């Protein structure tokens, strides 16, 4: 049901996130819940007044500890209210917040903390404090490590440490001494000041720090909501890393402007279940989250009883017909309408309930390419899934699908106040009030990316006849096939991942005689599949090399091949003996494949795929989550994909 949008706030250069925060706190006070955290089985509410109180004392506490305007505060930890308070407190004091990925390894933490000149590091608990203590000697500018979860912290006596409670106590003391200081600090802010420093995950090189201003963030949120408004009574679940621009975009830019309730899951592991409880109206997640949902549905569907399976199959067929009808903007026939309504009642309503999507108004995916199969799946079950395209450098979003104008192979049209063009080299460039200031301490990279106010994305794409932007791939990732045509490996990989048994795929074929793939099986689903068939295995490497598993994996590959031109078809594949992992630097923290890196690391495999060999031997190392590195020897079978005739 279309609803009138909330009155838009006026965004001037004077406005900052903290000023808006104060305004919202005044508006809602004790009457509205700003955030909830699931603790001990219930969703503990935190009102806007509580939010203000916590941010104020934290902010003043940090000021008491010596935080000055423009100082950087690094933050690391799971999504939790304290994390957001610390960020907001930093902004209120005129500081710059720098979020790190929660699972970052020591070297990454050290690099970012040192590079951004952070004065404080705010960690969640013992794990983050340990990281902080380990790097403090190599980061001379770091003055304090703050923490909020006391679990395991009893015997930590290092003077650099301080609990957030203690900081808040200092803040309240300062408040008594200098009442009104907090409001003054907030008042001093200006929209053109930097508020967030984002380290881009970097598929190629060391992370670069993108500087975003208050104005960037506010404008982005406003322009997004001009397309898809949110409402104060909406619920949003914050569970993706704050170090990802997408999460900041929803929690901060949109959240503050409209004042919806942000919900924090109990633990990262319970996020999916907690989302189901909340039933958010808006969700923005990278494709892997949606891929996981599809995989869950596929696996559970295979295990369902006969009647349930048959009904589900029928409903999905109907749903796909309906979705294709919508994509092509055809008018559905009456019979299809009736069948769709029946399928909704019989299957989709419950299906969406299981996925936690029953109240969803807009679901967004962005940050990586999503396969058309996944995309169609969500539209078939009636979830309004849209692509978002953007970069951290443009505060997250520049292009978006509009309601009723969704095409699964495009990313939509630019949001208001945003211009998108294609250069002569097919590079996508954009311009908007949200384009960043530049990279921190990296003028060369800034000059390369930012030219005359235009942001050069490094992505190749084109604009189709409906004005939709089509993103082909990262320019440097595009493959040139044996017949000279350009092809996107991401597209192939995303399609392979529609199989519940394929977790990751890596397609190779740039300037090579034929196309091959390296597959990472999904340990959970393939493992279950093997158990049901009595195939014994003890570990991931062993399971991945089972001939039966190869037979299982070849099917989805042939399925994908069927729709491809012959030169783009996958001829050979190998099941990798391990899952690709961000800790091994094979993926970025947002789980994008670091192609150049894996090509170097697995060059033996690549070489073997283009010889007549049936086996490839690897002598390599793997890194455990605690940082230990152990050598590993593995033999992998190379399998040929049977080729059949087709188009």
């Amino acid at each position, binding site marked *: 049901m279309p609803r009138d949008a909330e009155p838009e706030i006026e965004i001037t250069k004077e406005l900052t996130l903290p000023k808006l925060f104060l305004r919202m706190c005044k508006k809602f006070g004790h009457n509205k819940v700003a955030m909830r955290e699931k603790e001990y089985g219930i969703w503990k509410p935190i009102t806007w007044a509580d939010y203000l109180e916590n941010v104020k004392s934290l902010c003043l506490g940090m000021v008491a500890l010596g935080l000055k305007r423009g100082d950087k505060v690094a933050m690391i930890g799971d999504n939790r209210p304290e994390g957001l308070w610390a960020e907001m407190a930093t902004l209120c004091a005129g500081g710059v917040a720098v979020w790190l990925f929660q699972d970052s390894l020591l070297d990454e933490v050290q690099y970012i903390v040192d590079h951004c000149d952070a004065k404080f590091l705010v960690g969640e608990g013992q794990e983050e404090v340990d990281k902080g203590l380990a790097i403090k000697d190599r980061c001379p500018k770091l003055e304090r490590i703050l923490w909020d979860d006391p679990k395991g912290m009893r015997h930590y006596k290092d003077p650099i440490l301080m609990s957030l409670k203690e900081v808040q106590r200092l803040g309240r003391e300062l408040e008594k001494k200098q009442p009104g200081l907090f409001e003054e600090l907030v008042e001093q802010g200006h929209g053109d000041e930097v508020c967030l420093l984002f380290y881009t995950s970097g598929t190629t090189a060391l992370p670069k720090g993108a500087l975003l201003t208050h104005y960037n963030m506010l404008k982005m949120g406003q322009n997004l909501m001009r397309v898809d408004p949110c409402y104060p009574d909406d619920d949003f679940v914050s569970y993706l890393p704050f170090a990802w621009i997408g999460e900041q975009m929803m929690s901060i830019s949109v959240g503050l402007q409209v004042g919806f309730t942000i919900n924090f899951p109990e633990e990262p592991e319970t996020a999916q279940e907690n989302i189901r409880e909340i039933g958010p109206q808006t969700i923005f997640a990278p494709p892997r989250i949606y891929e996981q949902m599809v995989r869950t549905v596929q696996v559970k569907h295979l295990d369902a009883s006969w009647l349930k*399976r048959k009904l589900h199959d029928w409903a999905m067929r109907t749903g796909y017909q309906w979705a294709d009808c919508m994509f092509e903007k055809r008018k559905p026939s009456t019979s299809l309408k009736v069948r769709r309504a029946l399928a909704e009642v019989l299957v989709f309503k419950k299906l969406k309930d299981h996925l936690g999507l029953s109240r969803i108004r807009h679901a967004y995916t962005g940050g990586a390419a999503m396969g058309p199969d996944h995309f169609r799946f969500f539209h078939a079950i009636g979830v309004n899934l849209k692509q978002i395209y953007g970069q951290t450098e443009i505060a997250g979003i520049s292009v978006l699908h509009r309601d009723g104008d969704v095409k699964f192979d495009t990313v939509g049209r630019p949001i208001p106040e945003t211009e998108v063009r294609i250069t002569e080299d097919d590079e996508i460039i954009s311009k908007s009030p949200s384009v960043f200031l530049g990279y921190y301490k990296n003028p060369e990279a800034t000059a390369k990316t930012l030219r005359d106010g235009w942001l050069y994305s490094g992505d190749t794409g084109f604009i189709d006849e409906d004005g939709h932007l089509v993103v082909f791939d990262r320019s440097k990732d595009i493959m040139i096939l044996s017949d000279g045509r350009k092809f996107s490996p991401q597209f192939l990989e995303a399609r392979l991942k529609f199989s519940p048994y394929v977790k990751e795929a890596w397609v190779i074929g740039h300037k090579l005689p034929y196309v091959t793939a390296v597959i990472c099986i999904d340990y959970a689903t393939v493992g279950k599949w093997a158990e049901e068939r009595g195939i014994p295995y003890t570990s991931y490497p062993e399971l991945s090399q089972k001939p039966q598993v190869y037979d299982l994996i070849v099917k989805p590959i042939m399925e994908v091949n069927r729709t491809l031109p012959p030169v783009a078809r996958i001829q050979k594949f190998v099941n990798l003996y391990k899952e690709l992992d961000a800790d091994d630097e094979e993926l970025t923290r947002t789980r994008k494949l670091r192609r150049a890196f894996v090509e170097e690391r697995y060059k033996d495999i690549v070489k073997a795929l283009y010889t007549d060999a049936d086996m490839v031997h690897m002598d390599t190392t793997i890194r455990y989550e605690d940082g230990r590195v152990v050598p590993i020897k593995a033999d992998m079978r190379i399998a040929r994909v049977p080729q059949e005739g087709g188009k």
Partner: protein
Amino acid sequence: MSWLPCGLYHEHYREDHAWWQTTFVKGKMLLLAIFAIVILPYLDLVAPDLGPYLLNIAVILLYTILAASGVQLLIGYCGQVTLGHAAYVAIGAYTCCLVLMHGPALAAMTNDPNPIVRTLAALFSLLMKAGLLYPAGIILAGLAAGLWCVIFGLPSAKVKGFYLIMTTIAGQWITVEFFITQYVSQIGGRQQAFTVLPEHFTIGPFTIDSDRKIYYLGLALVGLVVAVTANLLRSKPGRAWIAIRDNDIAAEAMGVNIVAYKLLAFFVAGAMGGLAGVYWLNFNYIISPEHFQWFWSLWWVGVILIGGVGSIQGTIFGSMFMVLVMEGLKALIVPLSGAFPELLDKFLFIKEALFGLAIALFLIYEPNGLAYRWWQLKNYFNLWPFSY
């Protein structure tokens, strides 16, 4: 854990522990209430034959639920197997009966030389003037049966399992065969059966004398018992009982005072039995030790075994199963008795044999009872379109 739809979440424990959380369940309970309060008792207005018959069955059903609730609490939640529950039902029935029979006489003894008797007489005359003699009898019946049950629950402090079963059986013989038959029944010089006239069952301005009123009284008592049980179970005593049931040594190690909580369970269960006894008296107007034979103690255990041990719904499902199957059996045997006259003579034996068979079959094929089957049925639809 009950299943909740997407988008239903709780900010406070009060909501988290609410009985009915979804609109669907609330609607279901509303329909059930309408059926039980309006449709069933007034069915005779449309179906003059069927209505009263169903109402009679409903009364038996309510009595079975009341009696089995205590058994469920002891066995299903506190793990104290009792095979003597008829004794407490009997104590309740006799207490209330004596109050109703001798209350008026006691109220008249205002000039007795004994000051205690005089005080009691004044109290009873006050109660009688207010029309509250029967309610007082109900309360006294509950208290007496509860305390009586505590006495026979005392051994549970020392013994458990098989030995406790023996002591509860002993409680049955001591109470009904010895105490009630030999002594209580002799009060007033009348032999065996006590009778109370319908007009004595007055609660304030209402006299519980018609089938419909008796039915409503039963509904109220069942409502009370179910509400009390459900509330106890979601508070400290209930958690303590379940801890004792699951592992008494672990419970004690956790700091649960197991003797106190066991005795509390016996008291509450006995009091519920006492209410069942009162209800029996109210719809029969007559009681005799034969109404509280050991067989009934066994029968109620059968009810909860079939319905589902450790489930309030189980008590209700089990009662429905037992009462309705027996009624169905009667309906089956009466037409057959033309051809096989001995069926009628041997009905009691057939009933007992079938009771045994039903329990055996349930233990083999549905050991978790009907409540589990119901839960599975709900799950089938809750998990739709998946199976887990």
